[in-house]
């Protein structure tokens, strides 16, 4: 095996095994810090040794054993220094081993719920999840959060300290708490995905495929662990269908291309097929009487778009009907805005503009409110007002490709 192969093997094992090693060690030692550090040391040892010794037959097992040894070394060192060390332990589930073998007994699931605990600030949940489950390094996380390395490192350190000091448990929440807690986990993953999908910062790449890929990977993992959860399936489908359009979303000139103008031939057919399968699975569940949550409805809306070969084939009445459902689940002004965009296609820009203007107070600081108004006003031939709305949208937008698109649209006004 040449060194490039070994390097590739290590990258793959890191991707596949990092979370499992951290989770197993957290369970064993009841301490995230020990687990994280030992896992990192074990991978560093692999980088050193595998090029010479070769990749072991069971790399995951090798890493767990090595990390285990590193953890014990560290605990012995710390024990000498501080007898109280083991008193302040993260609480792990010390119930007798669960009767059910399977995903719910998977330590990675415990780890997810600990990292996404509602007692942690949302940015800390994101940082901790990317570190402990995603295996991203602190500099990588800093880039994802648009923070300095020091700030990102501090977030993780503080979150770990709070978990330890307050005894945030390391276990799968009770059935009664599970839906709310899963929803908290999905919020974290959706945030990571969205930052990749529409990156903030004028000097940042408008798309961050590393982040969307990571979010999809982690959502896939949760899907394996909680295969019966409709919202997990819904979020995965939503991400896949959105990701399928990634390359079509930004032009060669670095400008955002709206859905209606994208080259649909360049959409990723494989991702769309997978997304559609998940949406069909959830539609079957909905037909059987299980009310869909917001991610499932959003995925269904995206599936209507990805089913249309040409934008003119879009079933807008279906899209509006789905938004009507979504308004019931999530009566936020942003949902109402997106519904109005679909209404414009069905009932014309005038009807849509009236609906959008109702949202003026709630969404005055949201660039897409102004961009939507600008587009509707343009279609109604009200150029002067359209221009003012584009100006406002450009002022508020944070994504480089979006700003480029809005600027061109404004400058095209007669």
């Amino acid at each position, binding site marked *: 095996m040449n060194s490039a192969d070994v390097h590739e093997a290590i990258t793959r094992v890191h991707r596949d095994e990092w979370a499992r090693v951290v989770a197993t060690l957290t369970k064993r030692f009841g301490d995230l810090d020990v687990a994280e550090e030992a896992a990192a040391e074990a991978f560093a040892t692999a980088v050193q040794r595998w090029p010479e010794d070769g990749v072991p037959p069971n790399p995951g097992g090798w890493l767990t054993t090595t990390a285990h040894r590193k953890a014990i070394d560290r605990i012995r060192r710390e024990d000498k220094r501080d007898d109280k060390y083991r008193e302040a332990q993260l*609480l792990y589930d010390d119930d007798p081993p669960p009767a059910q073998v399977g995903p719910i007994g998977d330590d990675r699931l415990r780890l997810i719920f600990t990292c996404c605990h509602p*007692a942690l600030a949302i940015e800390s949940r994101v940082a901790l999840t990317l570190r402990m489950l995603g295996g991203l390094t602190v500099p990588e996380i800093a880039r994802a959060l648009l923070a300095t390395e020091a700030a990102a490192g501090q977030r993780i350190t503080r979150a770990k300290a709070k978990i330890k*000091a*307050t*005894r945030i*448990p390391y276990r799968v929440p009770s059935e009664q708490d599970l839906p709310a807690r899963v929803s908290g986990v999905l919020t974290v993953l959706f945030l990571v995905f969205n930052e990749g999908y529409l990156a903030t910062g004028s000097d940042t790449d408008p798309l961050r495929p590393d982040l969307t890929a990571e979010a999809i990977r982690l959502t896939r993992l949760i899907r394996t662990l909680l295969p019966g959860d409709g919202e997990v399936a819904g979020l995965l489908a939503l991400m896949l269908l959105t990701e399928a359009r990634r390359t079509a979303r930004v032009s060669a000139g670095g400008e955002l291309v709206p859905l209606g103008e994208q080259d649909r031939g360049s959409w990723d057919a494989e991702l769309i097929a997978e997304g559609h399968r998940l949406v069909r699975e959830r539609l079957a569940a909905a037909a059987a009487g299980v009310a869909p949550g917001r991610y499932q409805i959003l995925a269904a809306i995206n599936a209507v778009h990805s089913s249309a070969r040409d934008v003119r084939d879009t079933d807008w009445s279906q899209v509006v009907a789905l938004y009507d459902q979504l308004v019931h689940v999530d009566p936020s002004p942003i949902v109402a805005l997106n519904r109005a965009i679909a209404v414009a296609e069905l009932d014309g820009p005038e009807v849509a503009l009236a609906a959008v203007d109702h949202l003026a107070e709630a969404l005055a600081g949201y660039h897409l409110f102004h961009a939507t108004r600008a587009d509707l006003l343009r279609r109604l031939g009200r150029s002067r007002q359209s221009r003012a709305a584009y100006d406002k949208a450009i002022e508020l937008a944070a994504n480089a490709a979006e700003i480029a698109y809005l600027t061109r649209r404004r400058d095209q006004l007669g």
Partner: protein
Amino acid sequence: MQYMVSVITDKPGLATEQEDAAIDVFNDRLKAEGYWVFAGGLGGPDTATVIDSRGAETLVTDGPFLESKEYLIGFWIIEAPDLDVALALAAEGSKACNRKIEVRPFL
């Protein structure tokens, strides 16, 4: 593990009769289920005195150490196995006394 469950208020005055009754029910439950350690209500910030003996002389000042719209008005100390249990109890306590709650662990 013990947690300090602090009651935060921004409205002067004692608990209403209804709040008092709800707090009693909650306290009974804490005792019956083994979470109870201690609890108490406090006087408002205008009853506070700050003492500072770090220097050569002891300084005595009238008033709370920090003036704020919201302040501590009472607390429970509970024994709970982990934060999830503590937070679930705090949620009930907040409902009972009809005020905001802060949860912190004893180290």
